[in-house]
């Protein structure tokens, strides 16, 4: 590689060594950019007729000694809820509305150490990691935000996996983390961002960003389009199929003509 006129052997070795060292350093910094420090697989989750959820594998490479947080977020929108309370001291009913602005449709956070150890609440808030940060950003009734989270968690749409990753050390000394997230069938179609945050001395730095999409394909997609864009036709077809199914079953069972009772 280091070709050219007759160079002293020692110079060629030194230059080669320098190139290799610089190359690996540059390569390492390149891994700090998007795509190298963070790898997400798959980047497309197709929802077919027999879809029952998928697994998302996230791999992260960071400088040794740095803990990580991996945040998966769905599209943000307003969340409108009804709060239940006791009416007349007896009956549980919806008593008022709750509105939270700008919340992700799904939220998964995996960290390699307890959140409290990664950074202070103000720092976590600054970078928008964790439920308190989401609550702060969403505004609304902070006291009831916990119930909103409970609702989302019960549907498998929100989950925080604190202290759930351990590092393996790569040959060059970097730390490697891996996490497999279960994406349930309830997680809706859309584009999801995956961010990698590394923490050193209580400071968070975003080392990588990726994304994946979940999309309906085949029969689910066709039916969805039919239902949304051709509602009347869809409804009439659904009804006709139901009636025919009912009548055919009646015929198949063989109607009895006895005038009972």
């Amino acid at each position: 590689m280091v070709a050219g006129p007759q160079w002293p052997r020692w110079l060629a070795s030194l230059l080669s060594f320098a190139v290799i060292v610089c190359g690996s350093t540059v390569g390492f910094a390149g891994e700090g950019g998007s795509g190298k420090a963070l790898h997400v697989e798959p980047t497309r989750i197709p929802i077919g007729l027999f879809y029952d959820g998928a697994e998302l594998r996230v791999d992260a490479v960071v400088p040794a000694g740095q803990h990580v947080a991996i945040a998966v977020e769905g599209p943000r929108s307003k969340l409108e809820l009804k709060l239940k309370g006791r009416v007349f001291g007896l009956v549980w009913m919806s008593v008022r509305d709750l509105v939270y602005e700008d919340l992700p449709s799904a939220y998964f956070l995996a960290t390699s150490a307890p959140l409290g150890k990664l950074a202070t609440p103000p720092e976590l808030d600054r970078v928008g990691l964790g439920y308190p940060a989401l609550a702060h950003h969403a505004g609304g009734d902070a006291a009831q935000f916990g119930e909103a989270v409970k609702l989302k968690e019960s549907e498998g749409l929100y989950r925080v996996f604190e202290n759930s990753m351990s590092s393996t050390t790569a040959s060059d000394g970097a730390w490697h983390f891996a996490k497999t997230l279960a994406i349930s069938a309830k997680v809706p179609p859309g584009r999801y961002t995956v961010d990698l945050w590394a923490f050193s001395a209580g400071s968070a730095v975003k080392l990588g960003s990726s994304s994946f999409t979940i999309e309906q394909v085949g029969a689910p997609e066709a039916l969805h389009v039919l239902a949304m864009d051709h509602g009347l036709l869809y409804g009439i077809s659904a009804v006709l199929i139901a009636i025919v199914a009912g009548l055919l079953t009646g015929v198949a069972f063989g109607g009895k003509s006895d005038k009972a009772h």
Partner: protein
Amino acid sequence: MSGSIYLPIASNSVSMLLMMGLGALVGLLSGLFGVGGGFLMTPLLMMVGIPPTVAAATDSNQIVAASASGCYAHFKAGNVDFRVGTLMLVGGLVGGTGGVRIVSLLRTLGEANFVISVIYVLMLGGIGSYMLVESIGSLRGKRGAAATGPRRPSVYQRAVEALPFKMHCPRSGITVSPVLPFFLGVLVGVLAAIMGVGGGFVMVPIMVYLLRMPMHVVVGTSLFQILFTCVNVTILQAQMNHTVDFILALMLLIGSVIGAQVGARLGRRLKADQLKILMAVVVLAVMVKMLTGLLLKPDVLVAYKGGH
């Protein structure tokens, strides 16, 4: 993993066998009692993670199939009174429109949910208890409940006799003015619109006690009306709200069309009073379940807005 199917409108996956089993169970109730079964199916669907609006609209689709199946079986046995059924149905359409207005009014007053829940519990409790007491008494042959023997006609009976244009309905063996089934149909329609159900469990007692029709004909005639009501609701929901999930409906109806046939045959083997007792027990069980749902603190204190 295996045995799951994805529901494109409900945005979730479910076990195919579980949905067919659910459909079969509710179909059985349909064929047996002449009810739509929505009061049972909708909460069960919500429990497996179907959004409330999709659950209600899709169940309506399933009920079309089950009631078509059950009604066919009852028709073959001569147990559908088309005259009474059509009159009540037309009344139901009128009543339903009015009922929707009443719900809008309640909503503006802000007390809709509470009023609706109270009505539900009172109606279920009242109807269930009355049916239970009446049919147990009838089975025991108590003199007061016996239909034989001369009795002084009640005020209600005399009012009914006074109505004009009497017609004879051979299937149910009653002779009555068309005004009565029509008016009762209006009543059913109003209640159905307020409570958001097909109205079977209100229709059956009304036909039994206020129209004095035999229980087995009541079941078939009720299914006839429910069929048309749900055809209407399904098409409207699909067109206006896009909440009908056909894959879910298909899974449910595969079970329910068979369940309805089994239910229809099973019902024919039972005596009218036995059938009434069974129905009363089911209605009371649903009332107890609703009551506990109202009185016990829910696990999660929030719910999505826009659900029923």
